[in-house]
C-alpha cells in the first residue's frame, strides 16, 4: 500500500495552528494568574490536535459548534486572535461584547455557533444546521464537538437519533479525554467508547488516536468528504487525555500521576514536530520562524485585548430583543 503523502504547506499550516493554540492558552494561563480573567479558564493542553486538525478540512461557509476545550477551532475557523482574546477578557471588542464568558463567542460570518454551558446542547443545534444544508441542497457541512461526559445527556441521544433519521452532512467529534470534571469515564458509562453509540442510531462511528494530529486529520478528511457527497453523518471519537485540571482552579488530585506521565509523553504537538523533523519537512530555522511569528501575533492580540475598553454598563440591557426600546421591567431603579 502506498504511503500517504501530504503537501508541505498543509503540514506546516497544521503545525502552525497547533502551536498557535497552545501558546494562546499559555498566554491565557498567565493572564489568569495576573487576575485579568475574571471568570473560569478551561484549557485544552494535550488535546489541541482534535479541534485544530479537524478544522483544517472546513471551508469558511461550513459551520462548527465548538465547546469549552475547542479554542483551536475558533482560531482555525478564522477568528482573529485579538478578538478572541478580548472575548476572554470580557471586553467590548469581543464577539459577545462582554455579555458572555470565555469561549462563548460565535460568528455567523465564520460559521461558529457560540457555545453555551449547557453540555451536549450543541448536538441537536448542529444537526439542525446540517439538516438545513441538506434540504437546501448545499454541499456545506456542520461539525459538532463535545466531551464524552456530555454524551451522557439526552440532547446527545436525541440529536443522534435525528441525524440517523435524516442523514444530514454532520460530523460529530467526541473528545474523549477520560474525565468529566473529576469523574473518570468508567463512572460515566458502561461501554468503553462513545463511538459505539453511533451505530445504534444508524450511522458510522469511528475511533481515532486524538493525540495523533495526522490520524485525526485523515479521519476527518474521510468524514467531511463523505458528508459533502451526501453520505450522511459520522461520529469520530478522538481518544485523548486531559493533562491539566478541569479548569485552572482545579488541582485535579484525582488524576493519578503515573497516568498523567504516560500521556505527557504522548504530547500531540511534540510528536507532530518530531514527525516533521524526522521527515525533513521542518528544520530548526523554519521552526524558529514559525515560533517568532506566533509570538508576535500573540503579543498583538494581548495588547489589543488589554487596551480594549470594557463595555458601557448600560449595554447590559441591549440585545435582549430586536426592538431595543426600553421595555417594562428593564430597570431596577425607577
Amino acid at each position: 500500500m502506498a504511503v500517504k503523502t501530504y503537501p508541505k504547506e498543509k503540514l506546516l499550516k497544521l503545525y502552525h495552528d497547533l502551536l498557535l493554540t497552545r501558546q494562546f492558552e499559555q498566554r491565557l494561563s498567565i493572564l489568569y494568574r495576573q487576575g485579568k480573567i475574571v471568570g473560569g479558564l478551561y484549557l485544552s493542553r494535550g488535546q489541541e490536535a482534535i479541534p485544530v486538525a479537524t478544522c483544517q478540512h472546513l471551508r469558511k461557509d461550513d459551520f462548527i459548534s465548538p465547546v469549552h476545550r475547542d479554542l483551536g477551532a475558533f482560531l482555525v475557523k478564522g477568528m482573529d486572535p485579538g478578538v478572541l482574546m478580548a472575548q476572554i477578557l470580557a471586553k467590548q471588542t469581543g464577539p459577545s461584547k462582554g455579555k458572555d464568558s470565555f469561549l462563548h463567542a460565535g460568528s455567523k460570518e465564520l460559521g461558529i455557533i457560540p457555545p453555551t454551558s449547557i453540555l451536549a446542547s450543541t448536538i441537536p443545534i448542529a444537526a439542525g444546521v446540517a439538516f438545513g444544508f441538506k434540504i437546501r441542497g448545499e454541499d456545506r457541512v456542520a461539525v459538532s464537538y463535545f466531551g464524552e461526559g456530555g454524551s451522557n445527556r439526552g440532547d446527545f441521544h436525541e440529536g443522534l437519533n435525528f441525524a440517523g433519521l435524516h442523514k444530514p452532512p454532520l460530523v460529530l467529534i467526541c473528545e474523549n479525554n477520560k474525565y468529566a470534571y473529576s469523574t473518570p469515564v468508567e463512572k460515566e458509562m458502561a461501554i468503553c467508547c462513545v463511538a459505539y453509540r453511533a451505530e445504534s442510531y444508524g450511522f458510522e462511528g469511528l475511533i481515532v488516536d486524538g493525540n495523533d494530529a495526522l490520524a485525526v486529520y485523515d479521519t476527518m478528511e474521510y468524514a467531511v468528504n463523505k458528508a459533502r457527497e451526501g453520505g450522511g453523518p459520522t461520529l469520530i471519537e478522538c481518544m485523548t487525555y486531559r493533562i491539566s485540571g478541569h479548569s485552572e482552579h482545579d488541582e485535579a488530585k484525582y488524576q493519578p500521576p503515573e497516568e498523567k506521565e504516560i500521556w505527557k509523553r504522548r504530547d500531540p504537538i511534540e510528536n507532530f514536530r518530531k514527525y516533521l523533523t524526522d521527515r525533513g519537512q521542518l528544520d530548526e530555522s523554519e521552526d524558529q520562524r514559525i515560533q517568532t511569528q506566533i509570538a508576535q501575533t500573540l503579543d498583538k492580540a494581548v495588547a489589543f485585548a488589554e487596551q480594549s475598553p470594557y463595555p458601557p454598563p448600560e449595554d447590559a440591557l441591549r440585545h435582549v430583543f430586536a426592538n431595543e426600546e426600553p421595555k417594562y421591567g428593564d430597570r431596577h431603579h425607577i
Partner: protein
Amino acid sequence: MPEITMVEAVRQAMKEEMERDETVVVLGEDVGEYGGAFKATEGLFQQFGEYRVIDTPISESVIVGVALGMAIIGFRPVAEIQFADFITCGFDMIVNQTATLRYRTAGDMHAPMVIRAPSAAGVHGGLYHSQSPEAWFAHTPGIKVVVPSTAYDAKGLLKAAIRDEDPVVFFEPKYLYRRAKDEVPEQEFVVPLGKAKLLQEGGDVTVVTYGSMAPLCRNAVKTLEEEEDLSIELIDLRTIMPLDKDLIYESAKKTNRVVLVYEDHKTLGIGAEIAALLADELFEYLDAPIARVASPDTHIPYSPPLEEFYLPKKEDVIAAVHRVIEY
C-alpha cells in the same frame, strides 16, 4: 458557638441527616470523592461510601429522575445540580414528574427529596452560571422552594427540607457560600420551612427580601437608620414557597409601606406575587404603592461593568424606601 460558612453549613446538614437516617442519600455530578464543585459534599463519600454518595453521569434528568425513583421506594435523596442554571436540563423531571406525583396518585405515592443547586450571580459566572430560577419552581404546585441567606438558616432549613415529606428545591446563593459566615450551634436544630425571619423590627417601612439580597438590604437599612433616623422592619423570607404571608401582612399592617427586594429579573418574579397579594388583601392598609427592587429583564452578563449594572444595589433599596415614604 463556632462560626462557619454557608457551604460548610450545607455540608454539616447533609452529614448529620445521613448519620441520623440511613435512607438519606446524596447524588449528583462530582459529589463523590471530589466533594462537589463547591466542596459542599466534601468528606461524605469517605464517610458513607459509594451507595450513599453517588456520582452520576452528566445527565440532569437522570439525577432528578433517579432521585425520584429512589424517593418512591423509601429513600430520601438529596440531589445536587452543579449549577442552578443546568436545572433546566432536569426541568421535566421536576415539574411534570416529581411535583405531580402525590397529586396524580391521590396521595398513594410521594417524593420526599431535595434538589440543591448553587444559584444567583455576583461571581462573574456569565449567562450560564448566574441565574436565579426560583420563580419557575414557585409557580409549580407540589414543590417547596427555599433560598437561605445565612449559614445558620442554610443548615436548619436543609435539615428541615431533608425531613420534609414533599420535594424541596433548595437554592444556595453561591455568592454567599463563603461570604455568609455566622454562628451555628453544634446541637441539633432545624429551621421550619415556610417561616420567614424578622431580621429587625421597625415602624416606618417594611423591606421584604431573601437570598443574596438579604445582606445588601441589611446594609441599606443600617445606613437609612443611622443617617436618616428611619425605622425599618426587615424580613428575610427564607422559604419562597410556601410563602409566610402572616409575617408579611403583620408587618405591612404596622408600617403601611412595603419595598420588595430580590435578585431575580423583576417581571413576574417573587415580588410580583407579594405585591399582588398585598394589593388584594391589604389594600386599605397601604399608604404608598408597593416598590420592587430587582434586576432588569435582561440576561445576566459577564463583563464586570455589565454585571455590576445588572445587579440591584444598596442605593436602589435606599431610593425605593425614599419613594414609598415620600409618596
